């Protein structure tokens, strides 16, 4: 016999379980209401250059969703929220929520992605006075462009002040969307929560922020109230070890402090760009690869970009394939100057069969074939717990990964064969290191390595190289911890190109693991 379900509004020491997911429209609505226009959340193009690969859900939107899942509290007012943003939330993922409400004055909501804790929000309430009045919130036009403060600008004692007010119509829509009207939070409370998101995402530090922690205390609304709301935020500390910014701030209505906040946010560093100069230092020019025709699948960023530059620096004609990162691809093309080989941009989806057929036909018509095929593309990689409920994501990742290497190979192996070309697959040292939360990534790389062995057996004229680089310094690893011990992409690219320049390569599949 099962336990009876608690009725809505009842409290139990047992956590209540539910789910929540976010859409792109939810992010747009929160952004419009809060004035937080940080591009990490609303620009796919910008998000692709970050470790997250795709837009991240506003942490504070997660907190509002959590608040909306609490029991109604007509006789309480929110006094304090304490938030830990443990891991970034993504669009379209059904998160499991555990809602604990041991008393009417305390509630804890935890977001899980399967077993992984993503967000923890602790809400504290106090009794609401019968004569409590609600302060109307006034709309204020705020900056639409996020500040871009680097760590050298983040000096303790620096203050930022201004006026703040959410967009009223959109605020009402957010309150309706997340069912916030009976949860002990007034429009002013929700505005203060949005203000914290605005301050971190737009002001201190702005664009580079990854919100980590928040302590937000709401003050009784018993003083004189004036609009618009004004804020005053001060940098307390910038922790160089963790790239962690600690700020404190107040939101006031005239002389009355409405909310006091203590905020911590990581400050992301610049996207690492491969350096042609560093490459040419590592890789003196030789004649071995001069005049060769190369195609780099996924060549606009990270290791793919460095391989593109390295091959061009050896006199190759390199076709740089990219799917969406036009700005980055153009930057790599123009980085070459006029001294070396050439780079031609080739936009397209490598997992599109028709696109690959067209590329093959064009290469054969123009050059009679292909000398070097480098398969480097991968879908964005997020940690994925290995549990049954995440298996659909696991399969999607595997299918996409295999398609991004397998379809180009299926179209182009026959173009490599007559020229005794190279079929190169960028795998990873993780196929041996086996990191705990990347089972999908390890499986995909091993599957494609298997395909490389098959290709080597059935296209013996084609040389095969599997590359297993260690953790590299790329957009994907550009986080506080991720950068530690990461190898520069130029070093890995130079080792790969050195191997390809070997005049007498051995038969069978070669594996490059030493850099």
């Amino acid at each position, binding site marked *: 016999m099962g336990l009876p379900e608690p009725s809505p509004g009842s409290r139990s020491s047992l956590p209540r379980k539910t789910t929540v997911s976010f859409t792109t429209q939810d992010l747009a609505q929160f952004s419009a209401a809060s004035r937080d226009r940080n591009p990490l959340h609303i620009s796919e193009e910008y998000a692709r250059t970050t470790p997250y690969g795709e837009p991240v859900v506003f942490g504070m939107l997660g907190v509002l969703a959590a608040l909306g899942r609490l029991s109604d509290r007509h006789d309480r007012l929110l006094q304090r929220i304490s938030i830990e943003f*443990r*891991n970034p939330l993504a669009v379209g993922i059904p998160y499991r929520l555990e809602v604990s409400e041991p008393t009417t004055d305390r509630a804890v909501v935890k977001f899980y992605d399967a077993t*992984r804790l993503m967000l923890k929000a602790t809400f504290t309430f106090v009794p609401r006075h019968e004569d409590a009045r609600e302060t109307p919130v006034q709309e204020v036009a705020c900056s639409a462009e996020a500040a871009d403060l680097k760590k050298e600008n983040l000096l303790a004692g620096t203050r930022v002040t201004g006026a703040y007010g959410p967009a009223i119509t959109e605020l009402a829509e957010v309150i309706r969307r997340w069912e916030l009207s009976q949860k002990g939070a007034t429009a002013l409370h929700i505005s203060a929560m949005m203000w914290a998101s605005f301050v971190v995402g737009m002001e201190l530090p702005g664009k580079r922020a990854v919100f980590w922690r928040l302590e937000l205390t709401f003050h009784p609304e018993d003083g004189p109230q004036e609009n618009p709301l004004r804020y005053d935020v001060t940098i307390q500390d910038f922790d160089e*070890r*963790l790239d962690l910014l600690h700020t404190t701030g107040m939101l006031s209505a005239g002389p009355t402090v409405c909310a006091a906040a203590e905020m911590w946010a990581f400050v992301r560093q610049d996207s690492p760009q491969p350096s042609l100069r560093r490459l040419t230092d590592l890789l003196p020019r030789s004649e071995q690869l001069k005049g060769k025709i190369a195609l780099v699948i996924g060549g606009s960023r990270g290791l793919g970009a460095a391989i593109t530059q390295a091959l061009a620096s050896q006199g190759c004609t390199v076709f740089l394939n990219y799917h969406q990162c036009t700005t980055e691809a153009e930057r790599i093309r123009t980085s070459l100057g006029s001294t070396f080989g050439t780079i031609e941009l080739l936009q397209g989806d490598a997992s599109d069969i028709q696109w690959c057929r067209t590329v093959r036909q064009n290469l054969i018509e123009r050059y009679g074939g292909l000398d070097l095929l480098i398969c480097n593309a991968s879908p964005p990689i997020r*940690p994925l717990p290995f549990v049954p409920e995440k298996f659909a994501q696991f399969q999607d990742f595997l299918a996409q990964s295999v398609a991004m290497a397998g379809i180009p190979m299926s179209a182009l192996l026959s173009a490599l064969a007559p020229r005794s070309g190279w079929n190169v697959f960028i795998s990873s040292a993780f196929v041996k290191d086996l990191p705990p*939360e990347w089972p999908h990534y390890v499986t995909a790389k091993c599957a494609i390595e298997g395909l490389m062995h098959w290709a080597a057996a059935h296209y013996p004229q084609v040389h095969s190289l599997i590359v297993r680089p260690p953790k590299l310094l790329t957009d994907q690893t550009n986080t506080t911890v991720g950068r530690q011990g990461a190898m520069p992409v130029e070093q890995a690219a130079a080792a790969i190109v050195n191997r390809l320049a070997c005049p007498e390569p051995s038969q069978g599949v070669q594996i490059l693991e030493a850099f």
Partner: protein
Amino acid sequence: MELHDRLEEVFRQVFDNETLTLTDEMTATDIEGWDSVAHINLMFGIEQAFGIRFKGNELAEMKNIGELKHFLVDKGAR
């Protein structure tokens, strides 16, 4: 509260595990979920709880919980 119990409480919060029990021999591989994000949370949690500050990657270089406890004592953890 004894240092061991306070440290255990920090670990329980960080790893979201109310039944986690620390022993001196435990290492990072013995604790489920000790990834890069958890590492930063742990570092921050220990610093806040004990009023100390790690230099660079000091925490990652410790071989087990026993060594971490000795370190905290040597640092005059509050």
